[in-house]
């Protein structure tokens, strides 16, 4: 693993143009005159989950590489109008507008003006982030758009039609480019370094806050942006609480069982690796469950070829259930944050019924196996990209379901 000084220079202008073209094409197909990414809410105030927070302003990052921006992208090929807080440019957008002349003023007027300047007074405007989508904002059922500024824009353009276009941007994000795959590969490697650190530090008596801090520190020093990665620390008999901050009042002990969602970010791409760690030997009754999980993991990789429907993948994985053990899909998209599809125990599956796997899709693939008596629910996985031959893992660690440390 290289240090953070690696020669990353940011995404190319060709990548920018690829994204803008893909979004324009999707918008035109859907009959929109433009795509509008309005001011979205503050992820520090809306942390429905780690993924949810990361996804709040993902569309503006995807289109502008800016942390917080509003975008009007006409479908007919004209350049976008971009608004950010102070009108500061970056490598992709040379001339953004400032949100307001004075500090701490509403974005509404500048967003309305941008739509008017783009000739959208009577247009059909596709709004990204207005509701949860099929493959983006998947946990944000109510969308991510800031209410007060957006309501004012609606009032300022009474003759325009505003409709949800979350999937217009979403399906552009769904298929990753080579540059994005390169970034996700590196994010995955950083997350694996986090797992290595966890395995090194996790010992009986260790303060769990220290464990969280050491892992986080390792990923940061490798250049990852912060992500509220999750760990659960319990025992084989009882799953522990989920922590996305340093736990207080707790130490590891012999027999502690750690599960995790180890996430790192490089160039905006969020990786997730899932690797259970046992402080002590693995309980005997877990072994068949772990073995089946690893088997199902590889079967899933072989099956996830371009063109495959998600319901078929779900059924295929379920067909590996045996001896009372039940296998099921655990999968969600990887990319700029809150990516889909989302296939978990909680997620409604209507949205993926018609959805097919495409080359260049990325997700964390983490199938579950539940023991016959329901007392053990095991999951293992990592980042995967879909190629012609099926899923290719981006991680390098061995297929060891549970890492046992002394």
């Amino acid at each position: 693993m290289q240090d953070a000084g690696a020669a990353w220079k940011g995404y190319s202008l060709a990548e920018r143009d690829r994204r803008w073209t893909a979004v324009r094409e999707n918008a035109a197909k859907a009959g929109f005159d433009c795509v509008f990414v309005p001011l979205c809410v503050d992820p520090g105030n809306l942390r429905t989950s780690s993924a949810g927070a990361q996804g709040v302003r993902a569309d503006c990052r995807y289109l502008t590489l800016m942390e917080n921006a509003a975008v009007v992208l006409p479908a007919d090929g004209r350049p976008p109008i971009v608004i950010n807080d102070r009108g500061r440019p970056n490598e992709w957008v040379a001339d953004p507008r400032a949100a307001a002349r004075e500090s701490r003023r509403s974005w509404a007027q500048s967003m309305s003006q941008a739509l008017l300047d783009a000739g959208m007074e009577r247009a059909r405007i596709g709004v990204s982030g207005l509701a949860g989508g099929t493959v983006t904002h998947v946990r944000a059922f109510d969308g991510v758009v800031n209410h007060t500024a957006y309501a004012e824009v609606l009032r300022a353009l009474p003759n325009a039609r505003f409709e949800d276009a979350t999937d217009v941007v979403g399906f552009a994000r769904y298929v990753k480019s080579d540059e994005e795959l390169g970034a996700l590969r590196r994010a995955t490697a950083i997350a694996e370094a986090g797992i290595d650190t966890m395995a090194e530090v996790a010992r009986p008596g260790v303060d769990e806050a220290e464990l969280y801090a050491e892992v986080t520190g390792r990923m940061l020093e490798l250049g990852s942006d912060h992500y509220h990665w999750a760990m659960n620390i319990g025992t084989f008999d009882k799953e522990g609480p989920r922590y996305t901050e340093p736990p207080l009042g707790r130490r590891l002990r012999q027999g502690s069982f750690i599960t995790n969602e180890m996430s790192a970010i490089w160039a905006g791409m969020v990786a997730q690796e899932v690797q259970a760690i046992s402080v002590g030997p693995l309980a005997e009754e877990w072994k068949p469950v772990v073995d089946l999980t690893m088997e199902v993991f590889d079967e899933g990789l072989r099956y996830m070829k371009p063109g495959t429907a998600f319901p078929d993948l779900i059924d295929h994985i379920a067909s590996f259930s045996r001896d009372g053990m039940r296998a099921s899909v655990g999968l969600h998209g990887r990319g700029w944050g809150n990516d889909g599809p989302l296939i978990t125990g909680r997620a409604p599956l209507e949205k993926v019924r018609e959805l097919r796997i495409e080359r260049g899709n990325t997700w964390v693939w983490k199938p579950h196996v539940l023991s016959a008596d329901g007392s053990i629910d095991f999951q293992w996985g990592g980042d995967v990209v879909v190629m012609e031959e099926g899923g290719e893992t981006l991680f390098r660690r061995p297929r060891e379901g549970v890492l046992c440390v002394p």
Partner: protein
Amino acid sequence: MCTVTLESPAESTWKGYSLAERDRRWQRVRQLAADAGFDCVFVPLGNGHDARYLTEIETAAFVLPTDGRPPVLVTDKGKGNAWISDSVAANRSWPRPMAQALEEAGMERARIGVAGLKGGKLSHVRSPDGVLVHGAYEEVVRVLPNATFEDATDVVGRARFAKGDEEIECLRRSAAIAEAGIDELVEIARPGADQAVVYASVMRRMLRLGSEYYPWALYAGPRDGPEPARMTRPPVGRKLESGWMITDEVSAVWGGMVSQEDQPILLGPIPEEWKPAIALQREVFEAGLERMRPGVLFGDFIDFINGFGDQRGMKTFVTMHGRGFGDDGPLLTSRARGADLRDLAFEAGAAFVWKPYGRTADERISFNWGGDVVVTEQGGELLSRRPIELVSIT
């Protein structure tokens, strides 16, 4: 001067705020809401800071009737906590449960005060358009057509402004953790150091002490060069160099209270010509502490600080912002000059990061050092323990 023991997080006995603290907050918000003529205060989805203040749960919606009836809480999975035993489950779709909570509280025809609809003077100060999620909030308004919804950000903001004793203790600890982060920074900031490693080490130190993650800000560049970029994530591909100036805003979080400590560090000797600005800054810092008493108007305070340097042939400039559960006010910076804050008075228990500037007359040299402060009857009490000085690493 207080002492804060930083035991390891595993030994921490902190279990959250007490029920007495809950009641103090609810009572204050109810009183302020009643004064403003609201039948209840409604904290919708998106307003995590106020939700945490009133419920100890960040992802929540909350209805607090003004007349003393029990509140109604909405959470994603319908769980309660030590403060509120049960809640309505949203299951990721919040409009109906939020409307249900208002209906349960009898607010179909009420005047509802909405916290977070707009930016306030004392909270959500950097969010002029508020923090609410359109898809969730507009549906609630639609479902209750006979209710009146109005902004009440300052109702909760005003309650948050003056901290309770438990909050002050948490802020004290939070400030001590941030100072430990600064100790780490001073220890490892050397010419040639990878900035990402520096960033990570400071964060690691604070997390090891049990802080929640809060992205601290690092500015590093040549001493006499243009203002460097603000980095709130590990800087990639950058090393520190000899002669560089490091400024920072090191924040920690304990019990939800966000502290901020600002410690300038020079990777080289302090030039003689800098010393008057540094001395002036210390002087204005201390004069500001002395002046920060309950009842003093911010307008008078701003004028005093901004005029302080004149008599010395130099310049001083007020910079401060509230500390608490996040995005606290008042906000006084170079971009927010406080014209709308002049009639606001300091209150006992108000907490700030106090970081005024001292500048040479030609403004070529500008220095600020900052730390967390709580207002007491005797003036501002500095929670930081390190000296007010420029750290020089040679």
